[in-house]
């Protein structure tokens, strides 16, 4: 079965990211397809490579990046939500005249249409948030 996942909260602050990670892993283990993970609201903060979490805790950003690479999962950060919160890739850096970017490997920034498309294309959309 084809799943779309929406993540609305930032890592560590709220359990939503970890729940989504565990759900995605379990769905993959059961042979399902993850069509896309869409990061909205503070969920966009899952996509910064500048975090340095405590060594005795999970590295959430890295877990997403590794999962994306291993299973070729589409991790999409909403551009409007990202602009408000300072998540920037090279394209956004140039477009908005910023002097740095912070997007993590495996994530891409795109529009809200990607969420609607996930809703249309997937058999199930599962939302994790606050």
């Amino acid at each position, binding site marked *: 079965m084809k799943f779309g996942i*929406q993540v*609305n909260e930032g890592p560590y602050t709220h359990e939503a990211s970890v729940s989504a990670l565990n759900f995605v892993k379990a769905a993959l283990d059961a042979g399902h397809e993850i069509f896309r993970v869409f990061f*909205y*609201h503070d969920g966009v903060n899952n996509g910064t490579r500048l975090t340095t979490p405590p060594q005795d805790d999970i590295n959430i950003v890295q877990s997403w990046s590794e999962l994306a690479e291993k299973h070729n999962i589409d991790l999409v950060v909403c551009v*409007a*939500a990202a602009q*408000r919160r300072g998540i920037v890739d090279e394209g956004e850096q140039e477009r908005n005249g910023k002097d740095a970017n912070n997007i993590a490997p495996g994530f891409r920034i795109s*529009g*809200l*249409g990607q*969420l*609607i*498309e996930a*809703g*249309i294309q997937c058999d199930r*959309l599962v*939302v994790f*948030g606050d």
Partner: protein
Amino acid sequence: MSDVKKFMYINRKAPYGTIYAWEALEVVLIGAAFEQDVSLAFMDDGVFQLVKGQDTTELGIKNFSPTYSALGDYDVNKIYVEKESLEARGLTLDDLMPLKYEDEDDDWAEKDSIRVVTAAEMAEILEQQDVVLSF
């Protein structure tokens, strides 16, 4: 399943205190371009989003409430408000913005988008949906 899915956006949070209400509306506006069968539900503190007379001047932040009035132009005209949530908050339909749309199947007559429904009716409406987005 047909090509058109029934999309339901559920709004349960008050405006301004947090951004969920505004960012949910941004999804609805983008989603309108995809020609799906769209409904909005307002319950719990979400009903406060529709209260008329919002004025954020003194806070110095954007007042996004006029956007609700534009929903009709985007063919988003099924807006369900739970009666029980209104009552617990001392509100009636008169306290809400008068959201309208022009019905192309009825000679473009202007009609009300907001329908106040009971919890039991809302439960039935929710059952009929294909995709539920929650904010």
